[in-house]
């Protein structure tokens, strides 16, 4: 691969924009995932009774069930959000940059 093409992309303001946007998005989502998981672990460590509390007096289902299942769903939803934006908006921008430097 030609070095000058790499150099051209590196100097391209749209490339800088793409990288800044995508990196920021990835770090924000990572932080959300870790924060949700840490909060869950904090609950287990310090307030297990919260997870063991019943949803309502007449039921056997405890708060731990929707919270736990919710965490599994959130992992999937966060990956879906990332993939949607990365495979759409970011990849379009990426393609535009590539088209610009190699006509």
């Amino acid at each position: 691969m030609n070095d000058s093409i790499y150099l051209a992309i590196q100097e391209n303001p749209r490339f800088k924009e793409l990288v800044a946007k995508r990196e920021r998005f990835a770090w924000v989502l990572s932080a959300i995932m870790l924060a949700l998981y840490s909060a869950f672990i904090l609950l287990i460590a310090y307030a297990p009774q919260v997870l063991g509390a019943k949803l309502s007096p007449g039921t056997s289902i405890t708060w731990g069930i929707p919270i736990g299942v919710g965490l599994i769903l959130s992992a999937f939803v966060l990956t879906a959000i990332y993939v949607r934006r990365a495979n759409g908006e970011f990849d379009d921008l990426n393609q535009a940059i590539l088209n610009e430097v190699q006509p």
Partner: protein
Amino acid sequence: MIRRLAAATALALASTLALAADALAGTVQKQPLNVAAIAMFVGFVCLTLAITYWASKRNRSAADYYAAGGRITGFQNGLAIAGDYMSAASFLGISALVFSSGYDGLIYSIGFLVGWPIILFLIAERLRNLGKYTFADVASYRLKQTEIRTLSACGSLVVVAFYLIAQMVGAGKLIQLLFGLDYTVAIVLVGILMCLYVLFGGMLATTWVQIIKAVLLLAGATFMALMVMKSVNFDFNTLFAEAIKVHPKGEAIMSPGGLVNDPISAFSLGLALMFGTAGLPHILMRFFTVSDAKQARKSVLYATGFIGYFYILTFIIGFGAILLVSTNPAFKDATGALLGGNNMAAVHLANAVGGSVFLGFISAVAFATILAVVAGLTLAGASAVSHDLYASVIKKGKAAEKDEIRVSKVTTVALGVVAIVLGILFEKQNIAFMVGLAFSIAASCNFPVLLLSMYWKRLTTRGAMVGGWMGLVTAVVLMVLGPTIWVQILGHEKPIYPYEYPALFSMIVAFAGIWFFSITDNSTAAEGERALFYPQFVRSQTGLGASGAVSH
């Protein structure tokens, strides 16, 4: 505070491994020969061998052999990755844990799942854009080929060896339990089949075996969960209420239970599991089987979905077992314990909801699971030898493709023989320990070098070499000085290193070593390597120049 938090995080992660090993460790009684199970297993083997034959016709180049020609779709790869994760141990182990402690089982599943989004956000697309067949392609992208590939290949081989032994031992035990076959026969059978898949079918067959198994396992687990829900009229409240009534722990199964362990050991193992996954050569290799970063991202999306769905199913299955298995005297021995131990909860439930034919199906799927995982491991080990050591280090990148593949096939046979021999030798060993060691080494050697090569501009060959080897050696030495080897095997009185798992310390050593020996490296070669970071960065971000799908 931090320490407690860390300990709790680690526990959630660590225990999955321990319980997975539980499923497969210890003495097992041989079961009577199960004809339905064996018939279905033979059916699976015939199907997968047919696929291997089909794959062998399509395999023409090295790209076909190592990476299925980059033609696997994101959906298929997602299933294959999920297949690598949904092992027999996690299926039987997690449902057993739910069966015995209820809610705790869900906590463990969650610990295993949350690593995947992080892999997607930070690693997946850069990996796909930079690599070709092995993760060493990425680590050595701008560094010296000989040194870094040797390091990566050694890291890969050590990880593969320990993981393979653990899987072989587990396979032997499980087959004894499920089919009533002799341990040695089972090991030899697994060894021969995995060699056949890899030798003739390469990555294409290995991936399809994994996909078929994942589909069968998901279908079987879905059926079980549906039957369980049918028995309670699809009402979760009834399911839990009935379970609380019959379970000896009563209400306690609906909230987090006692998670106790040595916090540093647990934290150490937790780190190993989280970051070890991102350093396992057979998982990383899967990212090169898709055509581009777009498909790589989709793979993780589907994998996360399937794995999450599977964990929810095992939770229902575990509660179903409390309801339908623990109340049925036919599944218990004279003392009231479950036949074959708690790890058989899901297997007994299969019998309870679907009769002996479905029991045979689930047993066959459990065996298929092991076959699929060992095949992937063998391929990763063979690639490290042929692509990294032979083609890049010994032949300096001038090896003919034909020779490279031949070396890979010879290595596959050698690995098969080694796996069979070690599987028999290690029959009585603690396999949780070996899986922990494999993850610890992956997290302390492969992962730091890979991560920093993609993210840190100032990394140099010297830093990666010294730090990587320091991580690898520290992990192994601490394991030897720890309680398992130093006390239990070598018979010393007290361990020199008091904790079971080394990752906490060996990862710090690796990262610190890489950092220090990189920033103090003032050679001209190091300057050149730093200058190469920007082209690498552009490629990792845009995919420009990345190896793509092979069209025929």
